[in-house]
């Protein structure tokens, strides 16, 4: 019987038929498949480009630190390019190592940990008030208190100098001095104000991290402890705090990494009293053409950065152990503040005033007043914005009428715009390759290499670019002073965010829509043009807009790589600060802050996301 024969044939005991396939046949088959679509080709090309834009500069600056630099042949009695330990010795062990590395290191650490302690304390408290209590106005505060994070940190540094400046540096009077009290140096400059400003800047970051952790926190865990007889204090200490530990550690590590690369704030507030942190020390080395020492410093900063973020990945992995299983009971019951309500609201209001209201208002007022802190009507003027023939040496017109501003704005728009558009598109492409490529190794490499700049503080990365592109190498001409170096550095700097966004967008899209088109008969190009890009339009726009905003705020890349002819808004305002044109500088900074703020809002509208998502609900 036919059926029986067939049943027999399918029985598991049947002889396993194996036809031998040679390795060459497998290779030919997969090669054919890989080469059939341009994905592999584009992937390899992208891997080469990013290796050159990201890995090579880093290697170049690391090599700078152990090679005799041009002009030092005599002093080191060796040929340029020879291996030497002189720079490492100079930075770490010589008599001036104290000024070059050790003092800046100590300053960086104290500033970072000062800022971390304050922001964790304030941010943790605010996060709790927003998510777990019945404080009035939570929803408004949830958005308002995030604002400092959208603005460049050194906006606040400028506001600080406007208020607290003393005679240690020239230029117009500080407001407090104009009112009759000259603040001492330790309040006006250096460690204390830097700590305060960085703390205020990173508080929103803590609010966001803690807030989302607290929102997910299951009230039943507290209820159980209470039923078992724990007091409120014991619950806080034994239940909530340990469960918050991952968020806490994560906040500490990430803020530390950000402080490490922070340049604007210590530059504005540290310079007058020679308070150096690692980033400003690196800047000084570059400015004084000590490229060997700069190489050592940049490498040191990079190593600290990489170690910090490795620690974060390790902590995140550790934290998985703590993941509380969400249940239907993950409702979040709010504590009643009772008589503390007014105090809590006052505290939140005060924080908003100090971290947003006062700085922005100060900056704005400073640009419309002739004499600092003189509040009479005839002292107010819009000359610094739109005036002509002002009585200053180098800046005769109001900011808005100054061709320099418009040139800087144009440069910003073109340089940052070009870089943002490129990195947005590259990000989506990288996402596509990472998710789709049949070559796993290529996908892995692209994912890692585009993420690498995240580990390197911007200022060190800029130094690396300087090291690679300052002179012509092979077919690549010297790029220093050109727009190209800024665009390339910005692209590389933004790739972590762009490629992350691209990868997650492509992962979310899934394979199905594209495969449906493929089965319907569409080749690669048609699938890209008619299916992938139209569907990803939204994330592509965000992928361009977000790098654009962060590029406009960015300072550390530009301050090293820009020259006066490629001035962007940030470096332009820094130059104005250096010349003590306080009003003009503040006006430019306000313009940058406005662009950053409204850009962020626009991006949130566009993507229908909200940084403060549900925090106050």
């Amino acid at each position, binding site marked *: 019987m036919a*059926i029986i024969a067939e049943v027999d044939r399918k029985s598991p005991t049947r002889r396993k038929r194996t036809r031998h396939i040679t390795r060459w*046949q497998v290779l030919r*088959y997969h090669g054919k498949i890989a080469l059939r679509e341009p994905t592999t080709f584009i992937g390899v090309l992208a891997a080469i480009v990013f290796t050159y834009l990201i890995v090579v500069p880093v290697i170049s600056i690391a090599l700078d630190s152990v090679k005799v630099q041009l002009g030092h042949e005599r002093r080191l009695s060796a040929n340029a390019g020879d291996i030497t330990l002189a720079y490492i010795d100079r930075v770490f062990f010589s008599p001036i190592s104290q000024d070059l590395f050790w003092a800046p290191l100590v300053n960086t650490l104290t500033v970072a940990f000062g800022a971390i302690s304050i922001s964790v304390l304030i941010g943790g408290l605010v996060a709790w008030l927003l998510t777990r209590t019945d404080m009035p106005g939570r929803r408004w505060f949830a958005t308002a208190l995030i604002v400092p994070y959208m603005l460049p940190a050194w906006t606040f540094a400028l506001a600080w100098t406007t208020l607290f400046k003393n005679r240690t540096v020239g230029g117009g009077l500080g407001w407090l001095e104009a009112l009759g009290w000259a603040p001492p140096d330790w309040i006006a400059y250096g460690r204390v104000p830097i700590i305060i400003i960085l703390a205020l800047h990173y508080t929103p970051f803590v609010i966001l991290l803690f807030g989302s952790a607290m929102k997910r926190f299951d009230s039943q865990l507290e209820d159980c402890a209470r039923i078992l007889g724990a007091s409120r204090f014991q619950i806080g200490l034994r239940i909530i705090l340990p469960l918050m530990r991952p968020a806490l550690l994560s906040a500490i590590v990430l803020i530390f990494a950000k402080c490490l690369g922070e340049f604007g704030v210590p530059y504005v507030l540290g310079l007058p009293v020679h308070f150096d942190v690692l980033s400003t020390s690196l800047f000084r080395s570059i400015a004084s053409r000590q490229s060997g020492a700069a190489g050592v410093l940049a490498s040191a900063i990079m190593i600290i950065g990489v170690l910090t973020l490795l620690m974060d990945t390790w902590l995140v992995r550790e934290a998985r152990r703590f993941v509380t299983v969400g249940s239907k009971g993950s409702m979040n019951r709010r504590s009643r503040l009772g008589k503390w309500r007014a105090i809590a609201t006052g505290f939140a209001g005060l924080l908003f005033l100090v971290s947003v209201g006062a700085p922005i208002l100060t900056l704005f007022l400073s640009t419309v007043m002739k004499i600092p802190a003189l509040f009479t009507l005839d002292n107010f003027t819009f000359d610094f914005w739109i005036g002509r023939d002002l009585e200053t040496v180098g800046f005769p017109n109001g900011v808005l009428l100054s061709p320099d501003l418009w040139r800087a704005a144009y440069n910003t728009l073109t340089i940052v715009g070009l870089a943002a558009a490129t990195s947005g598109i590259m990000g989506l492409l990288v996402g596509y390759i990472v998710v789709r490529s049949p070559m796993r190794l290529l996908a892995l490499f692209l994912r890692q290499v585009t993420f690498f700049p995240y580990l390197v503080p911007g200022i060190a990365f800029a130094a690396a670019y300087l090291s690679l592109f300052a002179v012509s190498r092979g077919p690549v001409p010297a790029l220093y002073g050109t727009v190209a170096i800024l665009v390339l550095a910005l692209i590389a700097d933004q790739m972590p965010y762009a490629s992350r966004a691209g990868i997650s967008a492509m992962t979310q899209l*899934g*394979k199905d*829509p594209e495969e*449906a088109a493929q*089965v319907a*008969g569409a080749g690669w190009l048609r699938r890209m043009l008619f299916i992938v890009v139209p569907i990803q339009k939204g994330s592509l726009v965000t992928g361009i807009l977000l790098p654009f905003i962060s590029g406009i705020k960015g300072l550390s890349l530009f301050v090293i790589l820009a020259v006066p002819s490629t001035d962007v808004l940030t470096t332009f305002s820094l130059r104005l600060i250096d010349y003590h044109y306080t009003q003009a500088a503040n006006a430019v900074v306000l313009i940058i802050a406005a662009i950053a703020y409204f850009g962020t809002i626009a991006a949130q509208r566009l993507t229908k996301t909200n940084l403060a998502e549900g925090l106050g609900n």
Partner: protein
Amino acid sequence: MPSIHINGANKSYGSKMANAVTDLDLEIGDGEFMCLLGPSGCGKTTTLRMIAGLENLSGGEIRVGDRLVDSIQEGVFVPPENREMGLVFQSYALWPHMTIERNTDFGLRLRKIPKAEREQRVNDIMKALDIAKYRDRYPSQLSGGQQQRVALARMLAVNPTVLLLDEPLSNLDARLRLEMRAELKRIHAEFKTTIVFVTHDQWEAMTLATTIAVMNGGTLQQIGSPNDIYNRPANRFVAEFVGTPPMNIIEGGSKSDDLFQQASSFVATRLRVQSEIGSIGIRPETIQLAQSIDQIPPDSFHNRVTVTGVLPTGGSWIVEAKTASATLFPTMQSAPNLRPGDGAYLWISPDAFHVFDRAGNRLTDADEVFRRPTN
């Protein structure tokens, strides 16, 4: 309409993982409605995607008609876009940025069909599937059932040589699923397309397929008509996977099992089964209950049981019946006049036994005795 030949197909993801598909041989005839049936992870979707060209082979070859479309030995791989097939995804995968009409005529546009002909064809298809009134809407504005129809229309529009369906009904509610099944049967009759349909739902496979291929763990277990699969399961896996409630199995354990001893000696003598018996299966609806021994036909196997539970399911009743050594679950089409604690007799007619060897494969000796009709 071509037939599909899969010869010794293998698929593995990386060397450490188990094969997704192992040494698969499958012939899908022209105009057939073939269901690939199996639990999740059995390799049925992988098989479907290999036919479509969305997965590469790790060994073996696939032919569509006379055309070799995939072979490592020959170094041939025809990409999905050139295979002229249609595939309906479980998620439907409608393009969210296109209207229903654009979704439907996408393939026709790619093939540069003249406008008049294209519109004619799209209209016909939309009318046939009752989605013409939604032509200017976007997929997100349609319900699941409507989206399903669009996904079908999109693939049918290009007149595919083979229509592949990957669990297309699993996201629909029960009523819609029934309607769509009827629809699919109608489409199969009307368009005379070869259809390969992946499902884990045995009901769906039974009601739709002309041929069912049951898969498990990446290997083909049995291929045959729905009737074959149900009445002559090739092994324990097929026997237990197909049928609800599942087949009752009397295991031949090492301990002396009264029921197994009795049943196997009955089977051995009555059905002339000579090989060693590993286990015996009986479909629940073929187990009868009787209150006294004289109601039992003389020829049948019977045993005393105690009723320990009666579970009404609406249209039928499942009875929990215990013998001295085992528990069986017969189903009754009418309310059994029994309560928990009652004693009764179960009886099974000789042709209702499925006999398996130690390895779980069907012993076909018994089938010879009755020559059950096959189709």
